[in-house]
């Protein structure tokens, strides 16, 4: 393992977020030499998934750990050394809270069999079919590694750009997925399952026969999008269109808030596009149009990095980075690794949080209010474990609150536990923004012994504001041969991030195919002494 980093590459990529990783894969794939480097000791940056112990430390975590500014390098005339990293995009308003005791109290032990606290709870759980499992902080921490908690949870459309890219590039083999098994909506004070497919619509007892016809006709009209149908709604909202169709309130609710993922303010054309996207992704993998990556969204960037590595990309995490070298014309020359080694490259690509302050000083940031909850049951219990997506319409003309509930079958939490992610555009603090949704889905913290609350109990919660730079101009103030990659946005999927990665790739290598299909291993012939991998066609 006594390797030393080579001293010259075509491209140096700093940071292992999704956009950086896609660019890395695309560049390695066409034969460019890539150094993909991160100051952190894990993949994903702001896109990573953490276990319970790691997330515990997240609040103290600095995305630019291991950036060492005391570099001692000889610079040529006109060259300057710029510090890597900035604090403009840190997570804000972080607040973590346990709602369960650290350990079981002693009186509980005396009533039970001998042994230490933990054995007692496990015995109870094994025997008791009716008794609820008792969770303690200690017990959850012991299962820490079974958690993969997304900092930026993402759901993919089955026919979205992400899935198509994974299949066409053959990167799909590096990751596995699970189908979202139900889409819920909040209707008349209750959680209801949204009928997604034709068979769902017809088997749903809460939708009358007349409503079924209405719904099918309406969805058909949106799919065909004949000009006449929508010509009067160019400047009107989708909600107005639905109202004019004289549908029942139930049908309007299902269509507007769930299938079109819209609000009363969404323009008609956007609502129609959303419906098309939803319906187009149906029937490909599972019962809903949505997919979630096994073991968490943090796996996504690693799949792209794997392809990059297979095509020769050099990977180095946990590196001490000493700075970027720029010349007199403000052109990127190289990266200082450690105190002394200068690694040269003709292009620099970096995650926005790894950028020198001067390149991002005018980047505008909006925020996403995010909440993560560990609970002891599903928001809508059922016999089998569900992977649930819910669009919760917040009061007051706000954007929808996206809710993703993950069970143990997603490989992100231990048995008996659910992880609920909530996020919406930030207006106030994360806690205030999500309060309405939290109060509807979970048991209230003030115990009311008279009424048995069937809703799940929140065992642990974590609120934070995450930066969103989707709309920011990331070319301004940035030297010509350097590129910034945006972090996670408020979208459900990562299609926009793929678009950004493609733009960066095309700026560096115009007219070259972006992630062409990688050969399957059995197509590669290894010759004697020959350097080339020749894919058989």
């Amino acid at each position, binding site marked *: *393992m006594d*390797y030393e*980093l080579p001293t010259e590459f075509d491209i140096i990529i700093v940071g292992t977020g999704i956009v950086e990783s896609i660019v890395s894969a695309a560049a390695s794939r066409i034969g460019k030499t890539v150094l993909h480097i991160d100051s952190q000791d*894990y*993949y994903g940056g702001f896109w990573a998934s953490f276990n319970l112990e790691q997330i515990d430390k997240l609040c103290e975590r600095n995305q630019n750990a291991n950036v060492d500014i005391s570099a001692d390098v000889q610079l040529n005339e006109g060259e300057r050394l710029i510090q890597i990293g900035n604090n403009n995009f840190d997570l804000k308003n972080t607040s973590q809270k346990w709602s369960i005791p650290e350990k079981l109290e002693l009186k509980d032990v005396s009533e039970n069999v001998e042994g230490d606290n933990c054995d007692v709870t496990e015995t109870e759980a094994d025997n008791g079919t009716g008794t609820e499992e008792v969770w303690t902080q200690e017990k959850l921490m012991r299962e820490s*590694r*079974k958690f993969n908690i997304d900092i930026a949870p993402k759901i993919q459309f089955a026919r979205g750009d992400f899935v198509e890219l*994974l*299949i066409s590039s053959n990167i*799909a*083999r*590096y990751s*596995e*997925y*699970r*189908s979202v098994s139900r889409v819920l909506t909040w209707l008349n004070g209750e959680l209801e399952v949204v009928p997604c*497919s*034709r*068979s*769902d*619509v017809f088997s749903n007892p809460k939708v009358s026969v007349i409503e079924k016809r209405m719904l*099918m006709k309406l*969805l058909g009209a949106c*799919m065909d999008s004949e000009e006449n149908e929508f010509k009067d709604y160019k400047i009107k909202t989708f909600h107005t269109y639905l109202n004019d169709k004289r549908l029942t309130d139930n049908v309007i609710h299902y269509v507007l808030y769930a299938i079109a993922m819209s609000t009363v303010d969404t323009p008609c054309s956007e609502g129609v596009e959303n419906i098309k996207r939803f*319906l*187009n992704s*149906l*029937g*490909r*993998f*599972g*019962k809903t149009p949505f*997919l979630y990556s*096994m*073991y968490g969204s943090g*796996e996504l960037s*690693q*799949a792209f990095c*794997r392809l990059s*590595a*297979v*095509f*020769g990309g*050099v*990977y*180095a*995490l*946990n*590196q001490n980075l000493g700075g970027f070298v720029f010349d007199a014309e403000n052109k990127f020359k190289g990266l200082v690794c450690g105190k002394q080694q200068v690694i040269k490259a003709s292009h620099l690509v970096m995650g926005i949080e790894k950028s020198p302050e001067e390149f991002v000083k005018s980047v505008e940031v909006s925020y996403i209010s995010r909440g993560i909850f560990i609970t002891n049951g599903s928001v809508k219990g059922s016999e089998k474990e569900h992977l649930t997506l819910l669009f919760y319409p917040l009061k007051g003309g706000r954007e929808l609150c996206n809710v993703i509930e993950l069970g143990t*079958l*997603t*490989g992100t939490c231990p048995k008996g536990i659910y992880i609920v992610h909530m996020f919406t555009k930030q207006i106030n603090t994360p806690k205030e923004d999500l309060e309405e949704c939290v109060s509807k889905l979970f048991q209230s913290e003030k115990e009311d012994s008279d009424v048995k609350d069937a809703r799940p109990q929140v065992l642990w919660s974590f609120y934070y504001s995450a930066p969103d730079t989707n709309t920011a101009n990331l070319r301004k103030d940035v030297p010509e041969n350097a590129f910034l990659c945006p972090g996670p946005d408020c979208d459900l999927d990562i299609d926009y991030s793929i678009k950004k990665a493609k733009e960066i790739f095309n700026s560096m290598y115009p007219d070259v195919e972006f992630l062409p299909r990688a050969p399957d*291993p*059995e197509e*590669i012939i*290894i010759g*004697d*002494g020959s*350097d080339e*991998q020749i894919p058989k066609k």
Partner: protein
Amino acid sequence: MNQYVNKKFSNQYKATIGADFLTKEVQVDDRTVTMQIWDTAGQERFQSLGVAFYRGADCCVLVFDVTAPNTFKSLDSWRDEFLIQASPREPENFPFVLLGNKVDLEPRAISTKKAQQWCQTKNNIPYFETSAKEALNVEQAFKSIARNALSQQAQAVDLYNEFPDQIKLTNTAKSNNSGDSCAC
């Protein structure tokens, strides 16, 4: 890995660049086992193998170079790294296999005995001396790997089914509950 699956050996010494994963069917006691052998793709060189690499492994093959003592010394840390990252249910019983490779080369730095001793201290890991270049012992080693991976499954029946209904993205994949096609 290439020697085993394709019976070819690449003479170029470019670490493991280009290696991804290979699939091979082997007969183990009347059963046909399909093995997928995943290479580290060079990501181990700067300790940058992500946790995604370790997911779902049934057996871990550690390889060292019998002419390079430092590769032998680092076996402990690789074994630990695997157990931490993959976090198998029973770390003590997880199947490992050790290969001492390049036995065709001189001078030899790690003796057979020394390697076997290391294996004994780790709950008797099977040890094979191989030469990928001369196809020595490669077939036997991988048979043993397959057998060990299988025994792991036999002990924990639900190992394979820990996460049922996973989806591999392909163009042809259809859900089991098809018939649920487009709503229109």
